[in-house]
């Protein structure tokens, strides 16, 4: 059966949508904590890491000739070893997915709906996850585009801060003041995380330059259209120490907008952002589902996602409060950051080794012939 492939535009949007989640609401504060004054420049610097990472993934795509990572792994590693490894990955990704969802639910509860049970929100999310994941990546891609256009306009609201923006407030000092570069910049990196899942979408995209370019454009969009401008504005509208004390500076900025016809627009924007969080959750589950089905091939497609949802939903009950969930996310996020870096490197090594082997075999055969 001919599978429908993702359009390069869809790839770029997908990367942006997985990357930008709720971390954006606290990003300027994290940047101020990590880099000190003018920390918004630091966000651009950190974005080099996902850029290199995507470059590695693109190299895997190129040298692996568009084959899926399973096929590449199988060239060198026996399936018996691969299956438990991918099983672990499946759980890691599903946990990431559900924790992102739960985190959003708890924030919703804290900020706007104090009587909301996060479980109800989570169940809604998971029903959505079930429907989308069982329909496959192409449908997810289409949904992503719709959600993208539903949320992207909110960025333009940032232009309304010109009146409150003051260049003097940025100060001429670059990266001065107290800072915790190492721990906090990991959190900035977390804000970019999610793009690594595209390593699984090789079979669903056309093997072309445009597809590879789209991966970079997605990350560039997140960095230079969303993250850096928002941080820049936050640094110019809020004073430095105020910024460091605001838990969600970007939400405060949104709260600052007042239209004659609508008040407290930030609650609307926050709800819209749930769509973005939803795509992140769906994509992590989709990735988890892919590797889960590889490690247990006997399982039926629609059953696998149900199993994953039930297990992860159970585990998600262990961290109860926002702080716990934040801590879990921090640690799983760190593991994920390492995996994101290592996975393409390992794959490139495997591709290298197998090509050398093949060449040797080829030359040996040549001698025989």
């Amino acid at each position, binding site marked *: 059966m001919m599978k429908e492939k993702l359009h390069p535009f869809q790839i770029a949007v997908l990367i942006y949508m997985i990357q930008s989640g709720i971390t954006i609401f606290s990003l300027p504060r994290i940047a101020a904590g990590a880099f000190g*004054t003018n920390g918004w420049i630091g966000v651009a610097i950190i974005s080099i890491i996902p850029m290199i990472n995507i470059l590695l993934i693109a190299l895997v795509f190129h040298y692996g000739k568009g084959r899926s990572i399973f096929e590449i792994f199988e060239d060198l590693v026996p399936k018996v070893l691969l299956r438990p490894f991918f099983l672990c990955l499946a759980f890691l990704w599903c946990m990431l997915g559900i924790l992102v969802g739960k985190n959003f639910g708890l924030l919703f509860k*804290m*900020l*706007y709906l104090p*009587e909301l*049970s996060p479980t*109800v929100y989570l*169940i*809604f999310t998971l*029903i959505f996850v079930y429907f989308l994941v069982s329909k496959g990546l192409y449908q997810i891609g289409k949904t992503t585009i719709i959600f993208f256009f539903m949320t992207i306009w909110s960025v333009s609201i940032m232009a309304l801060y010109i009146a409150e923006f003051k260049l*003097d*407030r940025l*100060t*001429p*000092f670059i990266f*001065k*003041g107290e800072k915790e570069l190492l721990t906090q910049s990991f959190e900035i990196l977390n804000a970019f995380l999610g793009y690594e899942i595209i390593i699984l979408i090789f079979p669903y995209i056309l093997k072309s330059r445009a597809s590879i370019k789209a991966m970079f454009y997605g990350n560039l969009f997140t960095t230079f259209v969303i993250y850096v401008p928002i941080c820049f504005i936050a640094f110019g509208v*809020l*004073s*430095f*120490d*105020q910024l460091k*004390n605001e838990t969600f500076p970007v939400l*405060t900025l949104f*709260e*600052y907008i*007042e239209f004659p016809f609508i008040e*407290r627009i930030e609650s609307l924007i926050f709800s819209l952002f749930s769509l973005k969080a939803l795509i992140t959750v769906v994509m992590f589950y989709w990735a988890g589902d892919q590797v889960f089905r590889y490690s247990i091939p006997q399982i039926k497609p629609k059953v696998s996602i149900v199993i994953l949802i039930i297990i992860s939903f159970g585990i998600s009950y262990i961290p109860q409060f926002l702080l716990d969930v934040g801590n879990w996310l921090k640690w799983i996020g760190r593991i994920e950051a390492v995996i994101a870096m290592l996975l393409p490197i390992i794959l490139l090594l495997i591709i290298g080794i197998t090509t050398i082997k093949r060449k040797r075999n080829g030359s040996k055969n040549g001698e025989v012939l």
Partner: protein
Amino acid sequence: MNRLVFLLVFIFFLTGCMNNYGIDDLAMISGVGFDVSKHEDHHLDITAMYQVPTETDVFEYLHASSNSLENADIEMMSQTKRQVVNGQLRISLFGEELAKDGIFPIILSFLRDPSVGPLVSLAVAKGTAKEILITKLEKEPNTGSYIETMLERLDEEYVYPSVNILQFTRSYYDDGIDPILPMILTTKRNILLDGFALFKDDRMVASLTNEKAIYLFLLSEDFKKGVIDLEIEIGGKKEDVHLSYVRTKHKIKVKKENNDFTVNFDIHITGNLEGYSGKQTLTKDSVQKELETKINNVLNSEMKDLLSFLQKMNVDPVGVGEAVRNSLSYNEWKSLNWEEVYPKINFTTEVNMKIRNMSKFQ
């Protein structure tokens, strides 16, 4: 299968019916005032007003004494059958005495409460905040919303800024500027803007009258609308000048010579001369030039007076600190004892006033 899931989804939607709030059951606080408490074991007297939702123009007041805003909740709740909510808060007033003690703990409570936005206006009440909130105006019974609208209108149409939570917090945390708040006065029949309170950190240390405050805003902001009333001396006689549609541009330059700072304000003003009580014919070029020089002289000396007053009180609402900070390196700024340096700064002002056009009748 799909139908079943559909049904399940809709059952979940029913959870939305679990808690419902009729608007009639809410006491939506529109204005709140804080004063120093007369009780021994409490620090704050809190007065809150809300509109009775079932009636027009009927307002009720809640009073509580406590040590913080959060602790006053229960006392307030027990005074009304409605649920007290802060989501519609428009203005928060601080009694003068309390403002002198420090108001940041209250602002912090606002910042932490997710239902209170950063747009709530703040003001200092001359006398007590309670007095102002309970003033019943014939023209506008909703005192809270009236004060907020008045302040916002002044902000938009004149040079007097309204200050909200975000702006106050911003100046409070900034090391180069000190916050200000508008001051409000009640005269039983009316509520008026009566100058500006100058803060050091979160404590009010001085105040400026409406007339003097204009010079403060000329030094610290660029504005496109506003009026300036001046008194100038021409030929030994005092004449009144009224400038309207004033546009200003200001530049602050900092010079450092062996630890001595010279800060120069370069201010360009254009405005329409709408009122002039003198006898001279305004169309004459020489008269216009003379007027401009006189106005410049008056503005220069007024601003110098203001700056030395601010230095004497050691408050910096102009943001001189910002300009000095941005002219130094980070280490130089951090090693500077700003509190000691500021009163010694040598200020110079260069006002360049141009009359855009004269009144339409000679």
